[in-house]
């Protein structure tokens, strides 16, 4: 009996390692790995990464009292390097008391409205990007860790469905580029696997920082599809799917991308 259990255990252990060996190491690649050395250095050096300008601005906003409550983020959350550690690595998530997921921008605005009694920041505004950059910076180096919340499954499925669906005049899906043709070149740039490891990213094309939603919108326009309106739940669904797909990959925020 003991011998049998031992053999089964051995089989499980052996079987798992065999599966790992056969499945190969993780084939997922961050867009960082496909950039040239110059851009990698730009991201790696905090004194050269232009995204750090926005992290710094976000650090100032973190301390700034706003709204009728006259509270700053720091008044409730204290030091961000402790309280915000890992937060960007798990969003989108369903906030306490809510019934649908929000991304980090949505979460920041909930805080502003509910706790600071302030008006929400316009999505993708400079102050919002700065706060996002500052909060996300606290997760740099941590693995992407979507919440283990069964309520999210339906939205993730919706995201997966959008990801696999052909759309737009070019009749392309996200998957055709980022799964089937990732690693090949499009206009001289390597098509990435679309793992959201660095958001908000400082994108050279934008000459500034931007969110994952902006990137998704760019892609939709690229395939000549109509982008979803600002704040549409489809973006959150796609973000949920992409974060799940990138589970365990390391956060780089603020990333630099071409």
């Amino acid at each position, binding site marked *: 009996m003991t011998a049998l259990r031992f053999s089964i255990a051995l089989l499980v252990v052996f079987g798992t390692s065999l599966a790992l060996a056969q499945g190969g190491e993780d084939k997922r690649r961050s867009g960082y790995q496909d950039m*040239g050395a110059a851009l990698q250095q730009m991201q790696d050096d905090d004194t050269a990464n232009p995204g750090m300008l926005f992290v710094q601005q976000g650090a100032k906003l973190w301390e700034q009292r706003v709204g009728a409550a006259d509270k700053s983020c720091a008044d409730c959350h204290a030091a961000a390097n402790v309280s915000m550690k890992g937060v960007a690595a798990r969003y989108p998530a369903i906030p306490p008391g809510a019934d649908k997921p929000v991304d980090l921008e949505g979460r920041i605005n909930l805080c502003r409205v509910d706790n600071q009694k302030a008006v929400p920041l316009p999505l993708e505004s400079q102050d919002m990007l700065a706060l996002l950059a500052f909060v996300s910076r606290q997760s740099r180096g941590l693995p992407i860790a979507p919440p283990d919340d069964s309520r999210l499954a339906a939205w993730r499925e919706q995201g997966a469905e959008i990801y696999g669906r052909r759309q737009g005049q070019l009749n392309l899906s996200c998957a055709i580029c980022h799964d089937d043709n990732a690693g090949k070149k499009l206009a001289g740039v390597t098509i990435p696997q679309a793992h959201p490891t660095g958001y908000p990213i400082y994108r050279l094309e934008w*000459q500034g920082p931007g969110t994952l939603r902006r990137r998704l919108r760019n892609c939709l326009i690229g395939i000549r599809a109509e982008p979803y309106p600002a704040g549409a739940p489809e973006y959150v669904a796609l973000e949920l799917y992409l974060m799940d797909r990138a589970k365990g990959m390391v956060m780089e925020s603020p990333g630099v991308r*071409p």
Partner: protein
Amino acid sequence: MDRRRFLAGTAVLALLPFDRAAATPDAMAEAIRKVVGGAVVREERVKLDMPPLIENGNTVPLTVSVESPMTDGDYVKAIHVFNEKNPQPNVLSAKLSPRTGRAVVGTRIKLGDSQKIVAIAETSDGKFWSASADVIVTLAACLEEST
């Protein structure tokens, strides 16, 4: 133009020092002339570091280094950078002194197209030195974004 004349023409062209004079558009040559006057520019002592292939022309890292002891008696006074295909030929002009310690300047520039970049240094003895780099840009700067 008939075929024979055309061929004769290309033969003459092939004899010209093609590489320098023809590859440098007039505006850049003129901008350089304004800086160096009639002085001889030697392709020595200057190093221009740029990645040979750029993913996006909006932000291209560039470092110019000049061999110089940077002493009171022998230093680099100025470093200029020019490009041949952006709307304007002048990229930057840096002023240095013995207090600068090392004649090295780094920045990031926009490139509207694949092109040649020229760096020129002026030393305290009034001489000019240069280096150039050919850069391939796969996505140019200044494209308007619709989102």
